[in-house]
């Protein structure tokens, strides 16, 4: 357990304190305490910057399940440090912002901050873990905490719907990814990402390569809201705005990007990886851009814009993976795409974070986010307007802001594909820059819509729920101001980041392809001369402006009236069908008759046993060396059999109970004969308890009636009962015979010898129960407890006739 481990676990540990802080220090907003955590962590991670920018990495091990190769290994390199800084840096600002955003007296801050801290710790775990199983665990925790945060205002139906949707989509992706990880383990025989990278040759040539890659990519695509899994992100906007700014634009949705970047050295270098990621990314960019135009809600526009930008980063990662094919890191032709991806990742976090925060301010001060109701806020909220202008200009890719710089690099990176002389880059590759350019036009247009519809135009006070609209308090403005300052600083001095953050991150995405002693060429500047990229940007501005000017015309079209994504409709149908289908299956098997359930179980058990026994040739019958059976045993067994055969024929309940009890006591007697006093005692006790139970409820039981069971059902029941009996008999005899045939040492010998010396008791059964197999007992206790709770809920919380399961 090193300081690095403690840093990852710190948010979880601090989350334990939050409820107490909330309860006993009501006067101070809980957020002030919580803010300390990311702030300290941010400073801590900054201290790693010199290490990574020198090209070094840090690896810390804490053994968790070493026997399975699962260790809590943390690995700091350029890429993970970049994400850790984003998580803690943006986290600090978001918590500061939330202190003012959630200032109401009735907010359940204890819940909010516990979830936020849970998320923060999990996210740090995702980006810093070297072990994919540990990564997976943290990955799912981010899904869960995200769903909890979306449903923070859980009384709203839309929040619950959004939370459920995000949960289904991302957990589906997570489980798929776990499948991919398992296949990776099969191929590489390690859970460590770094060892996989070292063995990527084996993985590339393995027949499981493609399935593993697709499964892992599904996980990354669901998390990073790539088409067609993007549908959960717009609905996640029901979360409080600090959450949207933090999870759903700056950090969590980038976990998929992180995973793709991290796995590029493992999977990259082939046509499949290149084309799948690039085409899905570029299409998501287009789809998100078109969808954003149709939205009327400020946050929904930003959500689709996030989808679009994530698609753009994704496509760049795909395009950049070609560097592994050429293995030429010194040539900027192949590495520019990765440079653009890393740079845009940082830029997007800064401008989109500030835009979300401003959207939250507008919502907070005017009471609505509907662009049809907003307008003319420029003079009323001048600071917010200024912040928006800069953020939007960066998003639209206007010079001189950082968005312009990364968009130019994006155009360069994606156009370089045309110059690749493999994977059809030179033939159909031209389609990528074309789509990228069209999508950029949409980006420009919706940025314009946000600004002009919110801050310009006519102020419509009668349409707003809040009567006296004014600028937000300064506390709420601090965080977006800091982010916008970051935008400006990066815009003016982009190369400040070049060799401290960006180049180390590129080193981690593209390891081992540089020639000795050299480094990636990272030089970002504004003026490249009049080249194709600049022309494309000018084209974007001109056509985007025309599109915005003619908005009144095309917004009348039917397709633009609909806000709902077509994939969401598919999802809703699928969801309804799933519920209906499972109800159908449940109703078909849940008859309410214990007898039916027994039949299901027995058929399954007998079937499985028969299959296994035949498959592994387990049946052996031989009665050699069996001890003689005394006469009285025959008598007991005969009595037992006769009673059991008679039992179903009895028509009087009292007689039936007595006979059943008799069977139980006979079994106890058999245990005694075979010198198993503990078993016999237990059997006696259980019989007694059942008799008491019968006596207690006897009064309420209806008279036994002759069941009108169909002959077919009856014969099925007889067959099933007979088969189970036969199966148990055969298995017992086979076990005996097999024990005679092979010199197996019985496990009982160990217990007989060690019961006293290791467990300190002469009663072997008890020592096994409490000591040798204590965990089994422990879990059985748990089962017993759960069963008792089940009885309580079945009887006390009984559903009415009309309620459905």
């Amino acid at each position, binding site marked *: 357990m090193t300081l690095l481990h403690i840093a990852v676990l710190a948010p979880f540990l601090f989350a334990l304190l939050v409820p107490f802080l909330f309860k006993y220090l009501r006067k101070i907003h809980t957020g002030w305490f919580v803010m300390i955590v990311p702030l300290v962590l941010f400073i801590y991670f900054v201290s790693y910057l010199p290490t990574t920018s020198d090209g070094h990495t840090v690896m810390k091990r804490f053994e968790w399940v070493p026997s399975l190769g699962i260790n809590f290994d943390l690995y700091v390199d350029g890429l993970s440090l970049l994400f850790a800084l984003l998580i803690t840096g943006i986290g600090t600002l978001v918590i500061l912002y939330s202190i003012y955003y959630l200032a109401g007296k009735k907010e359940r801050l204890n819940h909010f901050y516990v979830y936020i801290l849970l998320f923060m710790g999990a996210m740090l775990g995702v980006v810093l873990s070297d072990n994919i199983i540990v990564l997976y665990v943290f990955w799912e925790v981010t899904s869960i905490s995200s769903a909890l945060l979306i449903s923070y205002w859980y009384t709203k139906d839309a929040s619950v719907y959004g939370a459920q949707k995000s949960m289904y989509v991302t957990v589906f992706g997570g489980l798929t990814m776990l499948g991919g990880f398992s296949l990776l383990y099969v191929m590489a025989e390690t859970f460590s990402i770094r060892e996989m990278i070292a063995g990527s040759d084996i993985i590339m040539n393995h027949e499981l390569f493609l399935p593993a890659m697709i499964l892992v990519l599904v996980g990354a695509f669901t998390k990073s809201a790539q088409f067609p899994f993007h549908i959960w992100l717009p609905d996640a906007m029901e979360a409080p705005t600090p959450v949207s700014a933090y999870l759903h634009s700056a950090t969590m949705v980038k976990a998929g990007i992180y995973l793709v970047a991290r796995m590029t050295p493992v999977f990259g270098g082939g046509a499949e990886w290149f084309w799948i990621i690039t085409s899905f990314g570029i299409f998501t960019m287009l789809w998100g851009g078109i969808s954003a135009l149709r939205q009327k809600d400020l946050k929904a526009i930003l959500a689709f814009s996030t989808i679009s930008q994530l698609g753009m980063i994704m496509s760049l990662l795909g395009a950049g993976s070609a560097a592994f094919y050429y293995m030429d890191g010194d040539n900027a032709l192949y590495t520019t795409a990765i440079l653009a991806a890393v740079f845009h990742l940082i830029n997007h976090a800064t401008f989109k974070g500030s835009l979300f925060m401003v959207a939250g301010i507008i919502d907070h001060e005017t009471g609505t986010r509907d662009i049809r109701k907003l307008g003319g806020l420029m003079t009323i909220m001048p600071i917010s307007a200024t912040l928006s202008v800069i953020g939007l200009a960066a998003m639209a890719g206007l010079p001189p802001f950082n968005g312009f710089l990364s968009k130019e690099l994006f155009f360069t990176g994606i156009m370089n594909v045309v110059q690749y002389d493999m994977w059809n880059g030179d033939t159909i590759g031209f389609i990528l820059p074309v789509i990228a350019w069209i999508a950029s036009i949409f980006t420009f247009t919706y940025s314009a819509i946000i600004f002009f519809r919110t801050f310009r135009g006519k102020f419509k006070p009668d349409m707003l729920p809040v009567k006296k609209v004014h600028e937000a308090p300064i506390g709420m403005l601090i965080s977006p101001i800091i982010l916008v300052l970051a935008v400006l600083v990066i815009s003016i001095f982009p190369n400040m980041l070049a060799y401290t953050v960006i180049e180390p991150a590129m080193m981690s995405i593209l390891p081992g392809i540089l020639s000795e002693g050299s480094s990636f060429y990272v030089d970002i500047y504004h003026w490249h001369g009049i080249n194709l990229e600049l022309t494309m940007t000018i084209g974007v501005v001109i056509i985007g402006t025309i599109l915005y000017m003619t908005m009144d015309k095309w917004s009348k079209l039917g397709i633009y009236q609909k806000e709902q994504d077509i994939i969401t409709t598919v999802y809703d149908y699928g969801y309804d069908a799933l519920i209906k289908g499972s109800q159908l299956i449940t109703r078909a098997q849940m008859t309410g008759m214990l007898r039916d359930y027994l039949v299901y179980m027995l058929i399954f058990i007998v079937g499985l046993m028969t299959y296994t026994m035949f498959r592994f040739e387990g049946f052996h019958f031989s009665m050699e060396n069996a001890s003689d059976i005394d006469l009285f045993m025959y008598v007991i067994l005969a009595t037992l059999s006769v009673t059991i055969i008679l039992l179903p024929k009895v028509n009087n309940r009292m007689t039936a109970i007595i006979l059943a009890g008799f069977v139980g006591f006979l079994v106890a007697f058999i245990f005694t004969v075979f010198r198993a006093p503990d078993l016999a005692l237990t059997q006696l*006790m259980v019989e007694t308890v059942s008799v*008491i139970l019968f006596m207690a409820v006897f009064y309420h039981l209806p008279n036994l009636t002759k069941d009108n069971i169909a002959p077919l059902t009856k014969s099925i029941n007889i067959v099933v009962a007979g088969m189970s009996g036969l199966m148990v008999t055969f298995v017992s005899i086979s076990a005996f015979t097999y024990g005679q045939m092979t010199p197996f040492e019985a496990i009982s010998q160990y217990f007989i010898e060690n019961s006293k010396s290791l467990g*300190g008791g002469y009663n072997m059964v008890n020592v096994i*129960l*409490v*000591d040798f197999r*204590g965990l089994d007992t422990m879990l059985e206790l748990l089962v017993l407890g759960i069963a*008792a709770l089940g009885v309580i809920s079945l009887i006390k919380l009984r559903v009415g006739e009309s309620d459905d399961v």
Partner: protein
Amino acid sequence: MINKPNNMMFRVFIRLIAVVVVTFSIYLFFSGHNAPGGGFIGGLMTAIAILVMYLVFGVSTIKESLPFNYTYMMSIGLLLAAFTGIISWIAGYPYLKQFFDYFQLPLFGEVELTTALIFDLGVYLLVVGAAMTFILTIVEDDS
């Protein structure tokens, strides 16, 4: 369960029998490590004694004289069993490793004390709690 049973013979004898049964169940619980018995059997037997009293004196009477919350009893038992395991964990051994040693105690002479006994006490409490919960919930159901 009938709410006002009135059976003279039962009432007199059960007072004697219940004492014997409970005492014996406690004996079974303690002797479990070296002779037949243990938490499970002891617990069941205690439950039987209480149940028989319920049967004879009626639900309301026993509820007053033995006001246990059996759901709590279950959780205490489960926590106790889980907790003894953690002790060995803290000491650097695998979870649920049990320890034992022999001590000279006044009156009792040499006695073997084990952590397994605490674990078994958890079993005992949970079994009593669960058995009572099963039957009382079913019995008290009016609908």
